[in-house]
């Protein structure tokens, strides 16, 4: 169909007198202007709210900046040298990677499982989809504050467990549980979005392909592995990337629930950055941490993107 239209357009264009060609150019120019108008809010937003501030962050990272006393001295790359020798930064990155890895595994597998379950034409299925998506529209702070009460050592969850005769752990004060607890709270908050993305992808898989495979004798597991998974691979790539980036930037639950503790068991890099800037007033060094975090996240995203050819065969 697309080819037919192009051929017709070519014939029309080729046989048209010069005045018509000029009109077509004007129309195309108008189209381009409209296109630019549509994308300009996003482009301006990215530049003004993303690239320009990031430029400032790089500039600040080359200074020793203590705003309370008005100190702003050029130190070149000293802050970046400090990063290499800072155990707290190294430890925070390890914690961040642990958090991100656990969150990605739990979030993506749960989202996929829910999407498969909810990809049915059953009565009332919309209610279940809404139920699982609803945490997405709850304010992040409100979500975390409510969970803070639920996971208190004398909170709702341990109260329920005690009814069952189970002595629940101190979810946020036990170093071996705190990070896992935060991951679970974040998974429940964000799984709805990934579930919806998977659901949309699953509904885009042509039924006739699955039907053909079924007629050929393929088992449901084989159909999923050989037909569904390859066809939704672009969505898996998208979900993996946005979940990873979100996990590397986690901040709200740490700030409200643990402040990086107990000890430094939940001290992720974004919270260390916040603490360095706004509590220790070391804005220059915090900016250097920010630059490093950006480079690491960009590197991970690029790594995922570069491997897509091996497992994404149906890019749109």
């Amino acid at each position, binding site marked *: 169909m697309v080819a037919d239209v*192009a051929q017709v*357009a*070519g014939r029309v264009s080729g046989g048209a007198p010069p005045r018509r060609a000029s009109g077509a*150019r004007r129309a*195309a*120019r108008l189209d*381009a*202007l409209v296109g*630019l108008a549509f994308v*300009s809010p996003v*482009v*301006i937003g990215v*530049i*003004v709210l993303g690239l*320009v501030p990031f430029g*400032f962050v790089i500039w600040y990272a080359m200074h020793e*900046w203590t*705003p*309370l*006393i*008005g*100190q*702003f001295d050029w130190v070149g790359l000293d802050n970046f040298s400090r990063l290499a020798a800072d155990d707290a930064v190294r430890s925070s990155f390890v914690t961040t990677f642990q958090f991100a890895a656990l969150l990605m595994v739990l979030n993506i597998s749960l989202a996929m499982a829910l999407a498969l379950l909810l990809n049915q034409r059953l009565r009332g299925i919309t209610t279940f989809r809404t139920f699982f998506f609803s945490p997405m529209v709850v304010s992040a702070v409100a979500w975390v504050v409510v969970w*803070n*009460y639920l996971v*208190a*050592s*004398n*909170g709702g969850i341990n109260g329920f467990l005690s009814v069952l005769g189970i002595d629940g752990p*101190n*979810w*946020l*004060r036990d*170093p071996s549980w705190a990070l896992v607890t935060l991951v679970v709270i974040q998974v429940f908050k964000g799984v709805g979005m990934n579930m919806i993305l998977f659901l949309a992808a699953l509904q885009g898989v042509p039924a006739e392909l699955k039907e053909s495979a079924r007629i050929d004798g393929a088992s449901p597991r084989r159909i999923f592995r050989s037909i569904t998974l390859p066809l939704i691979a672009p969505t898996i790539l998208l979900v993996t990337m946005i979940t990873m980036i979100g996990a590397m930037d986690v901040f709200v639950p740490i700030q409200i629930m643990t*402040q*990086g*503790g*107990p*000890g*430094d068991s939940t001290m992720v890099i974004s919270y260390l950055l*916040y*603490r360095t800037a*706004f*509590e*220790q*007033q070391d*804005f220059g060094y915090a900016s250097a941490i920010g630059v490093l975090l950006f480079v690491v996240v960009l590197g991970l995203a690029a790594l995922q993107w570069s491997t897509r050819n091996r497992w994404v065969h149906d890019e749109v």
Partner: protein
Amino acid sequence: MKQPTFRRPVSTTIAVLGSTCLLLAACSGGDGDTAGDAGDGPVDLRMVMWSANEGHHEIFEQIADAYIDQHPDLVSSVTFEPITGSSYVSALTTQIAGGQAPDLAWVSEGYAAQFVQSGVFADLTPTFSEAEGYDLDDLLPDAVELWSVDGDLYGYPFSNSPFGIFVNLDLLAAAGQPVPRDLVAGGEWTWDRVMEIAAATAQSQGVAGFQPAADPYTMWNDALGAMWMSWGAQPWSEDGAECTFDSPEMVEFFDWFHTQIFTNGAVPGPGEEHDFASGQVAVRMGQLSASTGLGDAFQWDFLPLPAGPEGTVPVVGQGGVGVVARGDNPDVAADFLAYFTNPENSALLAQFFPPPRESLLTVEALTAAAPALSPEQLQGTVIDQALEARTKAGNPAMSELTDAVRMDLDGLWVADGDAETVLGQVCEDIAPILSGS
């Protein structure tokens, strides 16, 4: 089909975006030294404050309106901007970093040394000493010590509120415990006795026993800073440069507190949530402002701090206001602050905040601040304590110390935590911060 190219729209877009960037760069806050009063006309003053309480704002605005009426050539408006929550200092720092320094700022005693000694606040002495009828000598020396450097005043501690002990009399009676006021009268009001009562009430009533003024597991100085003084302990030396967390007195205090949590069950463990005003706590440490949240759902009393091994040490928590030296109008702001805190307006502020002026520490002046407190409670727990109270420890490097100490103390908040080991580690970790190296 090859798409047509359009240089003009693209170049226009680039030009617009470039201009936007330049504009942003021009408008962004740097470290610009803007100290000094701007212009000759009346200025708009802005004060950031920790409280969003409507009553506080009403009284502040009443004083500000009266000042504007008297000095229309100096000030056209005063805005009181509330920033609440634990991120107050961070938010204030962000404003200063962004080139939007307020003219005046309210900070708590824990950060007083940081704001005073690092030069964030301007010297108020010249303005205050010239202000008619100000009566600087009326200020309690102990109350202003933290806000002074070499005899010069850099902040005014408008709130000078002693810590005391709230008790839920109904819970104690139900647990068969003695009446605390009788223990005070009999000279038996000690920390050990308080914890015995708390533990017994917790066990028999299924509530929390003793709750410090803040969460001890995350806000160690706010929670425990007024308690360890009764053990003769201090976190660092007088000049703030040497760690004394590992002193025998401090180790003894933390050892005792650890026992109250993990052995006696007098203090709720880490991660527990309880609310005194809801009747879930037997004994709570607090300041008189907490009495406004207590209704008549249960009988309660407000008593002085108990005695520790070093006797009774009255302690106050303070809120102070200073003029931000890097603000746009430091001279006008200092003049306004002199008016804001003169004897007449201090009497108005006493409706909410116990003042640092000896002449205003009377039952009559404080009754409005805490109508729920009896004259005996005001005299015994607030006025008598405020006159001889010490202030909780602060440090010029408080921002850096808060988390460093908290992270080490987490090692103590387990059943087998050892105070001596943990506090030794605290000193090892904060020594470089204290020495400024």
